[in-house]
């Protein structure tokens, strides 16, 4: 039996809910705890405003005002379609925890002492991280196997922020590809050992947002696949070479516009 805990960025995160629900249904996997970051914290707001700038406004609109409805007008593969396919009913992690008797904690800071005590008490072998900010060493050291993160980019080459856009901007869609990497988290940024990698081919006319929506579906599948592979002992994490990749940062809107042009150049004119 693999004991897995979950860390989520907000209680109604669709990605986190799907991962939790899928893990709950796996034989030989026990969801032993859920740690959810509270959205109402001044520290969190300040941190995200500093990182995302004006983009935070759009994020608030999408995640808090629209919630799952934000997928309604999106064509193609996305998390909402996965919800429909799986018949997922549950609208919050809190509700799921209550219904399945899973220990649950909402915390202002996922690294604080209460969160550490909570997770240590759950005694997980692994933690599925679905967002919620930086994870510090005391939390990273709790599970015996490690904390799993699905990164929206091809590791080790593309670490950090906005890497899908950076892949396009650097003309690497064809060679490196757009994809998802499941890795164990360490003190660095996306620098831990890699478990699984998968890429997809962007279609002609497909926007970055649509590609991202497809990658999110892949992230759910890979997180569950990773936990099951660890349970069965048939995956060997591969350490990353520090020099094999670069760290990327939030993209300036002028570079972002260039990335979109580069995406079109690489994909639409193929």
């Amino acid at each position: 039996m693999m004991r897995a805990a979950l860390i989520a960025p907000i209680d109604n995160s669709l990605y986190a809910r799907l991962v939790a629900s899928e893990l709950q249904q796996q034989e030989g996997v026990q969801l032993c705890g859920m740690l959810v970051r509270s959205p109402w914290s001044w520290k969190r707001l300040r941190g995200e405003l500093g990182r995302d700038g004006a983009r935070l406004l759009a994020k608030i609109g999408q995640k808090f005002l629209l919630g799952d409805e934000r997928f309604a007008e999106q064509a193609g593969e996305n998390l909402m379609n996965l919800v429909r396919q799986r018949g997922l009913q549950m609208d919050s992690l809190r509700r799921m925890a209550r219904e399945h008797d899973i220990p649950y904690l909402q915390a202002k800071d996922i690294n604080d002492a209460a969160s550490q005590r909570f997770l240590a008490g759950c005694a997980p072998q692994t933690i599925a991280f679905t967002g919620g900010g930086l994870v510090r060493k005391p939390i990273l050291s709790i599970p015996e196997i490690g904390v799993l993160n699905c990164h929206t980019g091809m590791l080790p080459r593309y670490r950090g922020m906005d890497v899908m856009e950076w892949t396009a901007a650097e003309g690497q869609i064809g060679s490196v590809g757009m994809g998802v990497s499941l890795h164990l988290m360490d003190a660095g940024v996306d620098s831990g050992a890699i478990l699984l990698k998968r890429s997809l081919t962007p279609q002609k006319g497909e926007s970055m947002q649509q590609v991202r929506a497809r990658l999110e579906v892949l992230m759910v599948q890979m997180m569950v696949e990773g936990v099951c592979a660890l349970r069965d002992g048939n995956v060997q994490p591969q350490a990353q070479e520090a020099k094999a990749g670069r760290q990327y940062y939030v993209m300036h809107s002028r570079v972002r516009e260039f990335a979109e042009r580069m995406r079109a150049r690489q994909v639409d004119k193929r």
Partner: protein
Amino acid sequence: MMRKVLARLLESCAKRLEGFTPPEEIKTTILKGVFELRIPDNADAKLQKEMDDLKALLWQLGWLKEEQIVLTEAHPLLKPDENWRALLDQERIFDAQGWQGGSAGKLLCLLEESDPLVQQAIKRTMEALLRHVEVKRQKSLQKFQPPLTRPQQRLERYAISILFSRYARQKGDLRFLNTALKMNEWFAKQDPRKTSMLEKACRLRALAEQELSARELLA
């Protein structure tokens, strides 16, 4: 329905706020700024050199219709000496004590040097500096060694933006131009309007250097 309208409103606000200054507007700002800078005949060598370098950049951008202007030799004070090179080797240009004031200009002088060991040392310093500016954002580059006055700090930050733009161009590494674009926007918002001629010239040069890199890397 109401939630949808509000979400759309927030999204359009975000797009408007996130939008960047169009390159044409930046060009106008630079040319207007250069025109308004009336450098006296007896200007000191530093200011004169800054203006010459700025004009050389404008010429490279095709915005000056004069005969070719080439970059002049670096000021002797900017040339890296042995002590500074030792600090670079020991990765102490930028450490917990802060940024070694004057290092941006010295690094610019060294960019063309072919010694692979020097290039590796520069690379390490540039990556550390990039990470610091991106993580701390507007609060970055506040500690200098030895301590600098406020105008000197601003000059050093302009020099770092220039260094980022040129390094991006030299290495074909968009990440550094990305950070220079952000830095130049922060300067425009936070720096005082009334500054010395030297500061004005440096700020214009940071913008011109950014535009030259953008022309090469974002085309």
